[in-house]
């Protein structure tokens, strides 16, 4: 039953963001909290206006992620090995960051498998992975929105014949404006480079 409701709401998002014309009308209503971000020449990924859902079935716009440093990855919850490792790699980055600044850093997991990753499945995954609810968000949307965001971030994925996905293993670091600052490529990497970049962003932010 929950699944059915989920599929229906997915179809609704798909229709709602199917074409950007609707969004242009949306602009006219000045109903856009992230509008201030979209300065000319901005390379903010939060310009990709699309509707997402998080693990609590709460609608999320990407520009809701603005204001904090985002550490973000793509994956799917049935993923046998790589995705849990990506999460552990993100946790390793977090473990090296000063405790005082942790409220300025947020973690996001984007599902590439909207068919299986219902908000419920994402919630279950976040519990299995012991993710801190206050600092982690797991998002899903229509297949088209996910592909657009993946393209924006240079992230590749495709379905394989065993029913899983082959995908790039990349941890993306975004500044508070949503610009892509750094990519940690591969699994089980030394977190120091990413940690250094986040520390620098924290310094820039406080200045």
């Amino acid at each position, binding site marked *: 039953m929950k699944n059915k409701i989920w*599929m*229906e709401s997915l*179809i609704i998002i798909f229709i709602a963001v*199917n*074409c*950007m*014309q609707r969004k*242009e009308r949306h602009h006219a209503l000045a109903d856009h909290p992230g509008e201030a971000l*979209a300065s000319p*020449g*901005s*390379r*903010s*990924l939060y*310009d*990709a206006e699309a509707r997402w859902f998080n693990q609590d079935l709460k609608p999320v716009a990407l520009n809701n992620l603005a204001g904090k440093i985002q550490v973000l990855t793509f994956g799917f919850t049935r993923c046998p090995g*790589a995705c849990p490792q990506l999460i552990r790699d993100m946790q390793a980055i977090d473990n090296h960051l000063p405790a005082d600044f942790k409220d300025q850093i947020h973690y996001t997991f984007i599902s590439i498998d909207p068919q299986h990753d219902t908000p419920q499945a994402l919630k279950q995954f976040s519990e299995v992975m012991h993710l801190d609810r206050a600092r982690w968000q797991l998002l899903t949307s229509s297949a*088209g929105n996910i*592909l*657009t965001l993946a*393209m*924006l971030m*240079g*992230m*590749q*994925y*495709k379905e*394989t*014949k*065993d029913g899983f996905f*082959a*995908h*790039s*293993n*990349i941890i993306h670091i975004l500044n508070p404006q949503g610009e892509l600052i750094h*990519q940690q*490529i*591969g*699994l089980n990497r030394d977190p120091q480079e990413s940690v250094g970049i986040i520390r620098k962003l924290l310094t820039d932010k406080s200045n």
Partner: protein
Amino acid sequence: MLNHYSFVFVTTLILNLSAENSNTGKMVYLPNGVYHPFFKNSDDFDSIRLQAFYMDVLPVTNGDFLDFLKKHPRWQKNSVKPIFADSLYLKALSSHNLSEQPEKELIQSPLTYVSWFASKDYCECQGKRLPTTAEWEYAAQAGESEPVSSENSPLFRRILFWYSQPTVFPLPKTGSAPPNYWGIHDLHGLIFEWVADFNSALFSNDSRTKGGLESSLFCGSGNVSVTDLKNYAAYIRYAFRSSLKASYSISNLGFRCVKDLPLQGGKI
């Protein structure tokens, strides 16, 4: 400012000229089928089952896109967000080119210098979508008189000849060459076309840590993944697509859209 005037000028022209080509906006039906991917990694499907779909008979033309820009100004060159298109975006629609080419021909020439993001949104605004690599290749393997052209068909020689020539500017108008078996024009011989999954066809679990170009296609013995070595033309297309990024706007790259069949019996 100049751009703005030329834009208004050209859009007025479309109104006069859009009725000229009877294939404008026309789609044809392609039945259920199986496509055998040209390039296959160990974890890829051996064959891809395709649901029947409709495909545009012509690539999207400058005229089509100018019409779209009027309704969706966010995609005009001056307003497009830089993450969605590089600096060459819509270069061919600049006033400079307008003066060099008769307007009527420009309107019917294929749109190029367009990013994947703009192409995808264009299709979605028509209630359509970009084709997948499999769908595009499935449609494009047809000869003039058969749905799958044979290995020694003159089609392949013609395609390779075209690939070996520099692109001619201004681009000829769409629909000039004879259609293929399905009634589709210009899949070969005019421009390259965006597909929805352009950057993933060569991607595999073996390459995911690199996150980049598929080295097994290009380097030495890795070519064993290629299923049909005779099909050098497909090889060139796969290599070209994998070199693209979604914001690229290129002189010989445009797109066309496809559409799914309506859902039957109101079931989801």
